[in-house]
C-alpha cells in the first residue's frame, strides 16, 4: 500500500520534474528483498529494461531484467548491501535510478 502511494506520488510529480515521457523508478525495501518498480511518467508500465544494482562505490553487483509488470525483486541475500544499493533501470530510451541507504534497510529490519 505504502509502495503504491509512493509510486503514485512520484508519477504525479514527474510531469513537473522531468520530460513528458520520462522513466520513474521506485524501490522499496523489506528485510528480505528490494522491490524495484519502473513506470513511465505517462502511467505505462516499463515492460522491459535492464536493472543494474551497484554498491556504495558504484561497483556493479548484479544485472537483472524487469518483469513484464515493470517490477523486479532483488533478494538482499544475493548482494552485499552493507554500503547500501543504487538501483539503475535502463529501458533503452530512458533511464533513472533509486538510492537505498544502509539506514533504509536497517529501518525495515527493525534494527
Amino acid at each position, binding site marked *: 500500500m505504502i509502495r503504491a502511494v509512493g509510486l503514485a506520488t*512520484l508519477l504525479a*510529480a*514527474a*510531469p*513537473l*520534474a*522531468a*520530460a*513528458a515521457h*520520462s522513466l520513474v*523508478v521506485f524501490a522499496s525495501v523489506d528485510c528480505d528483498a528490494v522491490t524495484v518498480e519502473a513506470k513511465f511518467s505517462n502511467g505505462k508500465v516499463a515492460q522491459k529494461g535492464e536493472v543494474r544494482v551497484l554498491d*556504495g562505490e*558504484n561497483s556493479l553487483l548484479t544485472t537483472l531484467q524487469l518483469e513484464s509488470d515493470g517490477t523486479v525483486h532483488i533478494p538482499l541475500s544475493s548482494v552485499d548491501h552493507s*554500503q*547500501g*544499493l*543504487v538501483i539503475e533501470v535502463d529501458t533503452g530510451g530512458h533511464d*533513472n*535510478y*533509486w*538510492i*537505498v*541507504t*544502509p*539506514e*533504509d534497510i536497517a529501518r525495515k529490519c527493525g534494527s
Partner: protein
Amino acid sequence: MQRLFKRTVFTTLGLFLATVAVAQDRPKVVTVNYPLQYFAERLLGDAGDVEFPVPDDVDPSFWRPSIADISMIQSADLILLNGASFATWVDRVTLPRSRLVNTSAAIEDQFIVTESITHSHGDGGEHSHEGVASYLWLDPTLAIAQAEAIADAITARELASADDVAIRLEELRADLEAMDQTAQSAFSDTRDVALIATHPRYQYLARRYGLSITSLEWDAGAAPTPEQLAELSSIAERTGAQVLIWEAEPPATAIEALRGLGMESVIFPTLAHKPSAGTYLDTYQKAVSDLSQASLGANN
C-alpha cells in the same frame, strides 16, 4: 605547582568535553542549493550547522548523490527543499517526511511554467527544462517567502530560540527588501532593452523587473560553437539585443567572438552555488549593477 597543573588539565579537558557535547547536540540542516543555505545560516546563527552537499562543479538541479550523501542527508534535523522542480534527486531517495520542508509551498501560485526542451550536458546527463522555472531566489520577494518558510520550520522544530529567529528574520527580510529596491531602481530604465541569456535561468528576475530576456541553451561558461554563434546572431538581429548574460565567466575567446557581433557580455551568477567570493546579497547586487549598466549602454 602540581595542583595548578592538575587544575589546568582538568579545566582543559572539561572545556574539550563540553565543546564536543555541544558539537554533537548542534542541529544539522541540509539544503538543496546555496540561497537556502545562506538563508538558513542567517536564521540559525550559531545554533546549528547548515550543509549544502553538492560539489562546486555539479549543477545542483541535476546532482546525483552517492549513498553516503543520502545517509548524511537522512540524518539531518531539517532538509530544506526549493520546490519548483529543483533538485531532481529528491524524488529518487527516501527522505524522512517529518524533517522535509518545501520552502516554496506557499508561493506555488507564483511559479512560472516553462516550455519543454530536452537536452544533455554536464554531469547530470540528459535532462529537461520542462515544467516550472526553478530559480525562485532571483526574485527577492520570492526569496523572502522562502526565508519565512525556513524560519517557521526552524522555530517549529525548536532548532533555535524563536525570539532569536524572529529577530534574524526581520534583519534578513530588511536586507532582501533593500536588495529588491536597489534592483527596482537599477532596472527602472531598462524595461524596453532586449537581452539574451545563455541558459533559461532568469525567468523570475525578468518578471520581477520587467526585463525582456530571450534564452539560449548554452553550457555554463563554455565557448560557443559556430552554430551557436549563428543562432545568437540571428536572435540578436531579430530582437535588437546587444547584451548576452552568462551564468559564469566565459572563455576570453567567447567574449571576443561576441564583440565581433557587436554584443557585450555580462556575468549574472545564478547563485545556485556559493560564489567564489562574497555572499548571495552582494553578488546579486553586483550582478544587478553590471547588467543594468550594460543594458543602459546598449540603450544609448
